[in-house]
């Protein structure tokens, strides 16, 4: 009854190498190369990838972009604002060649610059938090799956505990009670560190479960036993035999976790427990924009669409990556 365990792998191989006499068709190409070939063919995923790369560049080169296309993100332009109504003098929230997305009500800050700078926080937190989740999740997942027994029980119960928490509430509460300066960090650096840690830390069970499941099925494969019979220790087996097989799921779930984390950060900012102002964040802008939904729709749309496009791009790419790496989808 060992068929189900390695069904995907063996069916893929069976298709690739039909008979003993015939040479395999796709010889020489590594699975990674095959995946890349497939990915390249997936227009939608590639679009996602291009946008992701673009957004990363935007985040990275925000100062340069803003220098040429906007105004400093924290610079006030009250001349753009009607003091009585608090909204832009010009229609459409002041959208013009000078202010590409218009200006923020009340203080006339350049929305374009703020959206561009907002990408920094979102991306930074999205990536770092994912890294934290992946590291913790992979470690515990692999250890639980490989050693089984009480280790597995312990880790699995811990994951249950984490999954039973209302994550958002918890993060909110935690951000609220944590001190203002710690670990030699303070201000926004600390805030970001805390957010990264909380988001990352509370998301690890999702990836942990996947890795654990994969590890359990891998552990049953005979190559693990073969390694043991050669005298390999646990470290070798975990690192050299199992980990390479987990790279694909880790990669896929990372790309799918990043957008989730970006959304999570924006939700926290929206609820007012994100990065402190005036640092622009998309969620924070949205939460400010609520009050001006009718008078300045551009204020709401600019960060909203930015979140949407970024998250969508990551999702598209992640989806494509999953398909490309999945041996079943031929």
């Amino acid at each position, binding site marked *: 009854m060992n068929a189900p365990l390695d069904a995907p792998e063996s069916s893929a191989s069976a298709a690739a190498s039909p008979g003993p006499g015939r040479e395999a068709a796709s010889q020489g190409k590594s699975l990674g190369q095959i995946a890349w070939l497939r990915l390249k063919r997936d227009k939608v995923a590639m679009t996602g990838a291009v946008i992701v790369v673009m957004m990363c560049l935007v985040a990275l080169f925000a100062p340069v972009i803003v220098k040429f296309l906007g105004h400093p993100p924290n610079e006030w332009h009250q001349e753009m604002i009607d003091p009585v109504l608090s909204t832009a003098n010009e229609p459409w929230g002041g959208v013009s060649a000078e202010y590409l997305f218009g200006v923020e009500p009340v203080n006339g800050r350049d929305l374009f610059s703020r959206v561009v700078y907002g990408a920094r926080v979102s991306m930074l937190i999205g990536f770092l938090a994912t890294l934290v989740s992946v590291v913790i999740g992979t470690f515990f997942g692999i250890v639980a799956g490989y050693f089984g027994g009480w280790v597995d029980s312990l880790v699995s*119960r811990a994951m*249950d*505990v984490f*999954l*039973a*928490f*209302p994550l*958002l*509430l*918890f993060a*909110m*509460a*935690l951000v*609220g*009670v*944590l*001190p203002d300066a710690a670990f030699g960090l303070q201000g926004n650096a600390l805030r970001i560190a805390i957010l990264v840690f909380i988001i990352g830390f509370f998301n690890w069970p999702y990836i942990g479960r996947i890795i654990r499941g994969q590890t359990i099925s891998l552990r049953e494969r005979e190559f693990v036993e073969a390694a043991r019979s050669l005298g390999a220790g646990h470290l070798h087996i975990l690192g050299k035999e199992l980990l390479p097989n987990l790279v694909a799921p880790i990669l896929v779930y990372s790309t799918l976790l990043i*957008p989730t984390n970006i*959304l999570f950060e*924006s*939700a926290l900012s*929206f*609820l*007012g427990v994100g990065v402190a102002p005036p640092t622009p964040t998309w*969620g924070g802008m*949205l*939460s400010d*924009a*609520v009050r001006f*939904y*009718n008078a300045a*729709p551009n204020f*709401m749309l600019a960060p*909203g669409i930015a*979140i*949407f496009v970024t*998250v*969508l791009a990551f*999702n*598209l790419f992640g*989806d494509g990556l999953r398909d490309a790496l999945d041996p*079943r989808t031929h």
Partner: protein
Amino acid sequence: MITYILRRLVAGVGLLLVVSMVVFAIFFLVPRVAGADADTLAARYVGKSPSPEAVAAVKERLNLDDPIAVQYAEFVKGLVMGTDYDSGTDVIHCSAPCFGYSFNNNLEVWPQLVDRLPVTASLAAGAAVIWLGAGVSIGVLSALRRGTLIDRAAMVTALAGVSLPIFFTGLVSLALLSYQWQIFPPGGSYTPLLDNPLEWAYGLILPWLTLAFLYAAMYARMTRAGMLDTMGEDYIRTARAKGLPERTVVTKHGLRAALTPIITIFGLDLGLMLGGAVLTESTFSLPGLGKFAVDAIRANDLPVVLGVTMFTALFVVVANLLVDLLYVWVDPRVRAPS
């Protein structure tokens, strides 16, 4: 069967206990690490301008000077057996499960939780019906029409659905549908079901749709993936070889198997959501548990935060328990030794 349920129950209670410890530690220990002391905690019970005497009195009354372990034991005792509180005029009994009294309005937390549950439950139940219905049918359709225009359109919509922050969709739909065109009632419109079922539904349509949009998208994707997997299984071929009509093959054989794992996720989602659909309730100002919790967190109202968190954990644990039992029923393999 009985032993199984008992075992699961014990495990659930254990889980709750651990959750309560962690939550308690975070809310009572972390602030202390961060510099708050018994005085500041006590001050939270006192109004706008607390006098030192008032603070001291509260501290005394709530035993805030005790070691944390003792306080935790008290808390658990309150949960299980209830606690007596001195309300001033006489001793009032906060009966089990007692989550203590809100810092803010001096009211027992538990009845307030129970009070807000119907809102959240209405929100969750309505949304769940929509998202399960829509998500699953779209997912099935997409899987069956794999690669066609319908499939692509459905999946792009689904991806959009999971990529849109719920507060954004909520806000935009409120701005347009409620305020601009006034098709739907504005945020915060909640009528209890028993008062007027029509009003109830009308007031909740927008939150339902917003919430369901996100989840339907997720479920459509999961269903599609599950259906693609199961429709490739050998037993589907067997069913076809029996001469069954395609509809039977898809629903009775394919969907049944594809839905089984979705039950787990649904249970977890629903459990978490019953603890408060935080963003939706905040966006639509629905007086449910999520909004309650957010307000409480903003006001640093620890007993309430603790209560909602525990309440949610309880729902998750119970939902998981139910899912486990349901699983036994839908998937006979679970009964077999693995």
